[in-house]
């Protein structure tokens, strides 16, 4: 029992434990400072560098958000040339509305002066509750209330864990140093062209078939409701600064796998939110642009190659231009 231990030994152990903890806190703060300083020098890499790049382009007239469906599909050169406006693509592989909302908040708090925000939608986002993917925003935990609120809800004890400044760089520290030492090219204003022919992935086909056959469950609807609220917040925040928001649905190479109930429900929901919050909803899939049913425009079932991106972006720009002219006329 504790009482059997000599009090002086116990006191000494307690002092050691306290000194150890003090050292731990000091080291934690120091590591956090070093990593923060390294982080601020990078603008490439999906573990945070792309956030810096987006912040540097916060005043681009057109900002593009979304996952890889944005990053590889919206050709910033086409947008800049056709609309005569500066465009930056802030799409990030594997990310969703959580990432977009936090990035938007950072950009707005830094005085973003954009005119348009294009969000390339991924229907599966509405059925996925994976906030942990956007944990790289932990770096901004002390700076942005929206980032803080979202991250503390990402898991149990998250508020406690995020008190550690080193933990805020969890899983991104190596990437930061890698991009600090050897920055990797990030395409053209965020857009990454993919010059590749179509590759048929057995896994992707299987996943698409499974998704097409799956019914919408009660759990799906709960996640969907939560996610749609964030999409609505995303539009509201932009509209509050008089920024026009465009929700765009891109193409999928279906090749015999038809759209399932989950996908069609997601598009209905996106359209409803867009209409409710005064955003433009665009269907730019093969139903609206029949050429985009052609295999030659795809890298895989979900992603366009650079030719496909060029075609998709042209249609996107045409739709935005037509909407702008309608709005100007009605005013």
């Amino acid at each position, binding site marked *: 029992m504790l009482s059997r231990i000599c009090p002086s030994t116990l006191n000494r152990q307690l002092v050691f434990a306290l000194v150890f903890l003090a*050292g731990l806190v000091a080291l934690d703060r120091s590591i956090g400072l070093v990593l923060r300083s390294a982080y601020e020098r990078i603008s490439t890499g999906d573990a945070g560098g792309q956030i810096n790049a987006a912040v540097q382009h916060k005043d681009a007239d057109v900002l593009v958000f979304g996952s890889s469906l944005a990053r590889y599909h919206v050709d910033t050169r086409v947008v800049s040339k056709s609309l005569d406006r500066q465009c930056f693509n802030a799409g990030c592989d594997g990310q969703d509305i959580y990432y977009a909302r936090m990035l938007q908040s950072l950009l707005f708090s830094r005085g973003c002066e954009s005119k348009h925000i294009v969000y390339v939608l991924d229907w599966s986002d509405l059925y996925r509750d994976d906030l942990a993917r956007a944990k790289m925003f932990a770096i901004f935990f002390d700076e942005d209330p929206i980032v803080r609120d979202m991250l503390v809800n990402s898991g149990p004890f998250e508020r406690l864990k995020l008190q550690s400044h080193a933990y805020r760089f969890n*899983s991104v*520290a*190596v990437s930061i140093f890698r991009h600090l030492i050897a920055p990797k090219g990030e395409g053209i204003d965020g857009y990454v062209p993919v010059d590749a022919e179509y590759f048929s*992935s057995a896994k992707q086909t299987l996943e698409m078939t499974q998704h097409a056959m799956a019914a919408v469950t009660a759990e799906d609807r709960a996640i969907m409701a939560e996610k749609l609220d964030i999409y609505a917040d995303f539009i509201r925040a932009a509209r509050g600064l008089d920024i026009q928001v465009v929700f765009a649905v891109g193409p999928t190479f279906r090749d015999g796998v038809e759209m399932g109930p989950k996908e069609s429900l997601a598009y209905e929901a996106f359209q409803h939110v867009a209409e409710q919050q005064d955003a433009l909803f665009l269907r730019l899939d093969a139903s609206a642009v029949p050429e985009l049913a052609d295999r030659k425009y795809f890298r895989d079932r979900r992603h366009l190659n650079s030719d496909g991106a060029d075609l998709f972006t042209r249609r996107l720009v045409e739709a935005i231009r037509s909407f702008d002219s309608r709005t100007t006329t009605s005013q």
Partner: protein
Amino acid sequence: MLFNSLQFVFFLTAVSLLFYVCPHRLRWLLLLVASYTFYMCWNVFYIVLIIASTITDYTVGLLLGRTKGATARRALLVTSLAMNLGMLFVFKYWNFFNESAADICAYLGLSWQVPALQVLLPVGISFYTFQTLSYTIDLYRGKLKTETHFGRFALFVSFFPQLVAGPIERAGRLLPQLSRRTTFDPGRATSGLLLILWGLFKKVVIADRLAIYVDAVYSNVPDHNGTTYLLATYAFAFQIYCDFSGYSDIAIGSARLLGVNLMKNFNSPYFARNMQDFWHRWHISLSTWLRDYLYIPLGGNRHGVNRMFINLMITMLLGGLWHGSSWNFVLWGALHGVALAFLKATENLREGFYSVTRIPENIRSVLQMIVTFHFVCLTWVFFRADTLGDSLIIVRGTLSNWGAPFIDPLLLAHAALGLVTLLTVEALQARGEPLGPWPRKQPMLTRWAASYLLIFAILLLGVENGVQFIYFQF
């Protein structure tokens, strides 16, 4: 409540503090409540199975203590075996045998209409049934005294640090420790904490990082080539080692905080020079259990070479099946059995070869380690692949379909940092510096530096989504 969660950190801290504040006579109760709570965090209802197993073996134990007649004693042992193995069969193997029977009947054009059971596999069932079985078997053999204190016996069955994934302790080792009067020992606590940190490091920095790569390849077998299969299999070899040995280290470290020394479960298995050596180093608590309660009772090597081979095969096949109810695990066990039999059969031949070729000892041992490691990797393919078909594609592809590998350099850089640390520590351990007593011998600053390094490696490099330990499913 996973070992790699903050919930467990709070739980262990609270239990450890209460343990040393609590009077000795009530400590068993505290640990029993903690152990049941720990288990019920996963599933409230399945605690009934542990309690049923406890009551059966406690009663059988009491009766064995009083019974002298051989037939009655055997009947009591059979009761315990039937209860524990029956439970294991129903919850773990029923559906497997049912499906296999249905497949065989379909092949023969017969009908098989036995329904499948819609039950969840109780976490840790293979571990605690084996642990409690060792108690009744040892009592039956007269190697052990009956535990009359029900609470302590219940704690022996359910002691939370090793309840869900071992080490599978023997009653002769664990029960006396649960009754022993323990005082707080700062040195033991420090070494326990350091071992917990080391286990967490192996789990979240190495195993869970490698798991991302392994899962990407093994869940999508047809899309990859032989080079990728090979890399993914190497990665899995270290993933499963770091996952399971990491769990064991956390278990041993947690028990050490509570004054209990659990048995060592791993001893640098990938430094093994042959398959027999491998099984002396891998999941030691299971391999010794299988040796003592299956291989030796079957006759071991006491009835000629052929019988020994049969015994080895039976032991390894059942060892494979213990891991999971699928033909992949049976095949995995069979491959290990064949390798062990081959080793025995070629003992003289190999010795002769070494004496003729006069390969220097150090070169020979390195070559043996490489060959053993690669054979173990081959068997891991069957262990990890989702289906037998996938296993065969991987083995065939590794031998023929080479090409540019699919790799994620950043992910591999993360894992490499962990692996370099792991192999350095393992090499030190192989030179006689086991991590357990290591902290006691070091100056305070060295211990602190090691602790800080591990803590910040976990915070910065750890995969942070609480992936379940692989052996929980067994």
